[in-house]
């Protein structure tokens, strides 16, 4: 091993750290005081974590959701440990119950902002406030309220702005902001933010978030139709995800590489990447991600004119969704297939397929408006009065109803 003052080497070599340190600063009384402040804060945070096990989940369970705001007054919830638990509750609900997640994030922000400055050292206080705002930003982004999400992420940044040492926390907040900017199609701003976040995560050896920021950055490049750059970044990320043994990220990267390869016209490579993604999600037991990947692959292949391969992927996705009892998703796949069939003039199969969807939705007791829309589509196909656009409109309507019911 070659010894040097290189930072990467210093992180790994104890003897070089010792040599490098020399006697730069003597260990005096002021430093002793700082050390005591650190250990006291550490002990306090650990004690609180120990004493508050499950406290947030219990309060949230025992209080009706529309009364959660009043929990801000509960003394047991007005500490760092409870706020950390609330952050976890936000994460758990983000996908299935984003409105509940938002209510909890609002509660966290309200508690964090009203904690007295004497309760924790200023750095810790800034971190817990920023985290609460970051959670609010995440949920707002999830609810497609992008302006508010960006505002909340900026509020998180503002909480951290007095502290030079909180670059890692800042990058976590800015990651959400970058994603929201990308969703607003402000690609250049998003790219700059996400690329800077990726650098900070790499510096802090936070590989999980490094890959997450990279995925978001690659997505931004892809949406800005910079497909080759997106692909190149994804290849680099794949290397990091393999090295870190992060199978979930590998699956997501393969999926996105499939999208890039499709747009770059390399359909054989796209199929390999999609299949890799499906295999990895299957290995992970992420059952719902498997048909979602198939569906995404099918749609993009069809959009690029690879009708046969795309339809095969969509049919496979539909079968798997149905197998898992995800009837709405299976029905949406069927409508995507029907749009292609109608466009090709294959009305018999389109009619049969939409009828099956009506039966499946009825048997599953889904929203009546969705059933009525598909039934009407079925009739329109019957009288040769449906176009692919009609099918797409019904698809969008059913999707909207599904999203509202979450």
């Amino acid at each position, binding site marked *: 091993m*070659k010894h*040097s*003052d*290189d*930072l990467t080497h*210093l*992180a790994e070599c104890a003897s070089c750290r*010792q*040599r*490098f340190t*020399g006697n*730069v*600063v003597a260990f005096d009384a002021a430093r002793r005081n700082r050390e005591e*402040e*650190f*250990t006291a*804060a*550490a*002990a306090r945070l*650990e004690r609180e974590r120990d004493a508050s096990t499950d406290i947030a989940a219990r309060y949230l369970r025992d209080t009706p959701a529309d009364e959660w705001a009043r929990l801000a007054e509960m003394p047991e919830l007005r500490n760092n440990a409870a706020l950390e638990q609330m952050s976890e509750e936000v*994460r758990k609900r983000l*996908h299935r119950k984003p409105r509940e997640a938002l209510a909890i994030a609002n509660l966290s922000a309200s508690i964090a902002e009203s904690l007295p400055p004497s309760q924790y050292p200023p*750095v*810790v206080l800034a*971190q817990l406030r920023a985290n609460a705002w970051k959670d609010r930003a*995440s949920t707002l982004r999830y609810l497609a309220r992008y302006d508010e999400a960006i505002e909340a992420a900026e509020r998180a940044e503002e909480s951290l702005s007095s*502290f*030079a*040492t909180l*670059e*890692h*926390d800042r990058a976590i907040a800015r990651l959400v902001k970058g994603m929201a900017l990308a969703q607003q199609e402000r690609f250049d701003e998003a790219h700059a933010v996400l690329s800077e976040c990726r*650098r*900070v995560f790499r*510096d*802090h*050896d*936070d590989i*999980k978030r490094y890959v*997450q920021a990279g*995925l*978001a950055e690659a*997505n931004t490049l*892809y949406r800005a139709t910079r497909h080759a*750059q997106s692909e*190149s970044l994804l290849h*680099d990320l794949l290397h990091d995800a393999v090295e870190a043994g992060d199978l979930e*990220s590998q699956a997501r990267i393969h*999926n*996105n590489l499939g999208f890039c390869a499709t747009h770059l016209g390399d359909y054989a490579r796209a199929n390999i990447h999609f299949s890799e993604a499906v295999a990895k999600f299957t290995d992970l037991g992420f059952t719902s991600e498997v048909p*979602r990947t198939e569906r*995404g692959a*099918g*749609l*993009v292949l069809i959009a690029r004119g690879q009708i046969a391969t795309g339809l095969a992927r969509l049919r496979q996705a539909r079968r798997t969704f149905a197998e898992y009892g995800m009837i709405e998703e299976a029905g949406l796949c069927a409508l*995507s297939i029907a*749009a*292609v069939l109608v466009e090709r003039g294959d009305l018999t199969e389109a009619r049969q397929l939409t009828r099956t969807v009506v039966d499946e939705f009825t048997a599953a007791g889904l929203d009546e408006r969705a059933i009525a829309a598909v039934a009407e589509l079925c009739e329109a196909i019957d009288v040769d009065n449906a176009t*692919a656009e009609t099918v*797409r409109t019904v698809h969008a309507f059913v999707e909207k109803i599904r999203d509202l019911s979450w």
Partner: protein
Amino acid sequence: MFEASPMAHEAAHEPLPPAPPPCVIDEEQFAHLYEKNVDVLIAIAIRKFQVPAVDAEALAHEVFMSYLKRKDDIRDLHKWLLGAICNASRYYWRQHGRNIEQLDTELAAERPDPASQNIVEIMASRIAAGEALAGLSPRYQHILRLRYFEGYSINEIAEHLGVTAKYTQKLVTRCLRRAEEVFNASEPRKQK
């Protein structure tokens, strides 16, 4: 046709945090962690970034305080601490109106980097290299300066230039070849 929602698999949420270890409050353990690492953080802020000693101490202390909230996320403590102090030092200078990292020449002379031990012997080559560098285009000079003078990695340069790492590697090789050509071309002139 339906247009696919582009790249459905963007990371939609925060990664799952690792399961926290069972809570054991051991103040001595925290004190040990502080004592063992605080010096190197201060030294990095002072020697690598020229942060004044008093501010370097405050930054190092703040790094430890921020560690308390992040500790369950951290895979490698030393890498995280070093990443945190480097970024903190850069932020410090951004706030103080300077954004160029400078070497502390005085301290560097007192405790030379072992990687620079044979500097006298290689100085002549460096001067020649400097001359060759001067004969390159500004873009080539910039790339070689980033790579060999400021020590940026290929990936970092790629990010800076907004191109891929593979292409950056090719660029660096091309720059070196060009520098060699310039160097070789200047030799006969010198001999004349």
